[in-house]
């Protein structure tokens, strides 16, 4: 994974590769946010369920930053999207054959942002929320979320 640094990220931004609003929104919180990776989400992974890691439990309610890929949302502009560890080759929203992977994080945005292209690594900052919650509009059930989220493009795979 050719994850580039934030410096390069800013350069990409200046060349217009990323909506400026994305970075402006992301900048203020970044310093305070603890980083969390997909590998760190679960302490145990089993057929009968997953258990959140101690790190997730400790960070619940706090500002965190996570890197991953934006799953193709239903609409080009949406207030929430699904963050996955690897790019999605299928769209579970539209294909009855496909299904979400187990380790997904739902991101609620403060304001609508345009969709990141596929295979584009993004960094999301938001408040970590843990526990089952059903989205009233879509009925989508999530167990782990980033609320008040902002994201910025980090680089291409």
């Amino acid at each position, binding site marked *: 994974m050719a994850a580039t640094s934030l410096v390069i990220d800013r350069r990409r931004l200046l060349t217009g590769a990323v909506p400026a609003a994305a970075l402006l929104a992301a900048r203020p919180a970044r310093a305070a946010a603890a980083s969390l990776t997909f590998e760190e989400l679960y302490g145990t992974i089993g057929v009968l369920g997953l258990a959140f890691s101690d790190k997730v439990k400790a960070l619940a309610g706090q500002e965190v930053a996570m890197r991953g890929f934006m799953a*193709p949302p239903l609409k080009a502009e949406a207030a929430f999207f699904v963050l996955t560890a690897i790019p999605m080759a299928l*769209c579970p929203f539209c294909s009855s054959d496909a*299904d979400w992977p187990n380790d997904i994080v739902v991101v609620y945005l403060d304001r609508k942002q345009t969709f990141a292209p596929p295979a584009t690594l993004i960094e999301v900052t938001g408040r970590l929320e843990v526990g089952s919650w059903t989205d009233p509009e879509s009925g989508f059930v999530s167990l782990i979320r980033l609320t008040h989220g902002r994201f910025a493009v980090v680089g291409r795979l």
Partner: protein
Amino acid sequence: MRSRLLALAASVALSGAADAATVMPLDRATILVGSPFDFKVEFEAKVKADEVRITVNGEDYRTALGAGTGFVEVETDKDGKELGSAVLLRGVRIAKPGRYTVEATAGNDRWSVTWEVFGTADAPKARNIIFLLGDGLSVAHRTAARLMAKGMTGGKANGRLAMDDLDRMAFIGTSATDAVATDSANTMSAYMTGHKTAVNALGVYADRTPASLDDPRVETFAEAVRRQTRKSVGLVVTSEIEDATPAAVVAHTRRRADKAEIVEMLFSVKPEVILGGGSAYFLPRAVPGSKRRDDKDFIALFREAGYALATDRDELQAIAGRDRLLGLFHPGNLDYALDRMQLKKGTVGKFPRQPGLVEMTRAALDSLSRNPDGFFLMVEGSCIDKASHPLDWERAVFDTIEFDQAVAVARQFQAAHPDTLVVVTGDHTHGMSVIGTINDDLPGDEMREKVGTYAAAGFPNYEDRDGDGYPDRVDVSRRLALFGTNGPDHYETFRPKLDGPFEPALKTQGGTYVANDKYKDVPGAVLVKGNIPKDEESGVHAVDDVVLQAAGPGAEGFKGYMEESDVYRVLADAFALGATRTVANSPAGQASAGEASAGKASAGKTPSK
């Protein structure tokens, strides 16, 4: 036939206004005598109850079907728009075989259909049926599996697949009621109900109302087995157990994606053996990893119903032989055979002790064969299809070899229990072909120069030194050239995907799929432009016929060209499911009493032994 044609002509002549109606079961439906089904007439306008006239072979439908009027004043679409009146009767039955013409009129609305209600032999031909289905199994998968697993010398195969020795066969038409193209829901539903239906539908005719769970139902094979016999039922798959193929044995929904509801339907039928993936839909929503939207805990419910639970291959060994098995080995689909056995990619790192299809089939037979009344076992090689969609041909072939080894287990069981019918088939095909070899030693800079065609193909150099029936590796220097007929934009690498399952295309902002750049720099990769709509993420099913093969009592019913719905008839005949008898002679009450005295759970009709 003539009357149906006349009726059709009449309705065509009348059309001009919105004056047609739809009768379900549809025209030319074949219905097992005595089996319950829902009857629905959808009028294309709002009509008055007293205008409706429906006859079955000339007799008023209320008398003929022994039910009420079932009149629905108006049905609406999802936006509340009126669609017209309807008549809907649940669970009617026809007691005598024969041709039945249904005529429905209301004002100018009229339609006529003819059904064939068929009976079966009075006595069963087979005690057991093992129905093995390779999802997406095409002729090329079989040819490639034989070449890869057995090898070839001088143009003759060095060995035979287990499925090569089944002695009866038929070509099977797989199309849906709404399209020549098809999916695993309506195809397996046709096998398991005797009724063809629409793409994405299971155990129902597709009606016009938006709800997916209210469509007119027909009886599934497991339900017929429960109604007419004391046999056990088993499901063994490598996909999620809620996936279309296993679901079609028990479920009724217009939408195969209703997986949480399908688990509930599975629970109501309670097959004695349930082995596969898909635990996420068994867990209450509060458990991380759950995909349910409610608090129902089906792990607990199945346990309370007397099931022994296994979550990996060791636990499966430990509960083998118990009366009721629930084995869930993955939250989603099990990994591909190639990943489970050799490459350890996909999610094998997280779930390292998944059993394979062969072990699961053995465990199922061990358990089911303890029922002296016999059993119906459905075994699905689920991931042949799942690998074929993303054009990952080596994984698809490896899963085909595994499927064939499960066929071998079924054949060994049949050798010891000759009263067993073994059926091996696919549900639909994929557009793939074997065209020769890819030979790294051929000269040329471009990979296409290394594709050996005609005499230049020679023979592939896979090896099976450990004798396990699988090639020791798939990335040999002279490998099969497997190509698909359709797909999205993607990079052709001319090589097996050793780093993990192939993901040919990724979705873009506009909803279209573009070639996945990840494979761009594989040496020799070339961009292949897609030939199907840009919103398709992978290769699609083919409309080509499926080859069905069978052996054992009743297998002589398979011949020539058959529709998938005709296959049901042979299965029903083998078990004499149309006979007036069976459960009445051996009441379920007695069975439960026997179980109770033997100290076993009595949540169904499993006999005491």
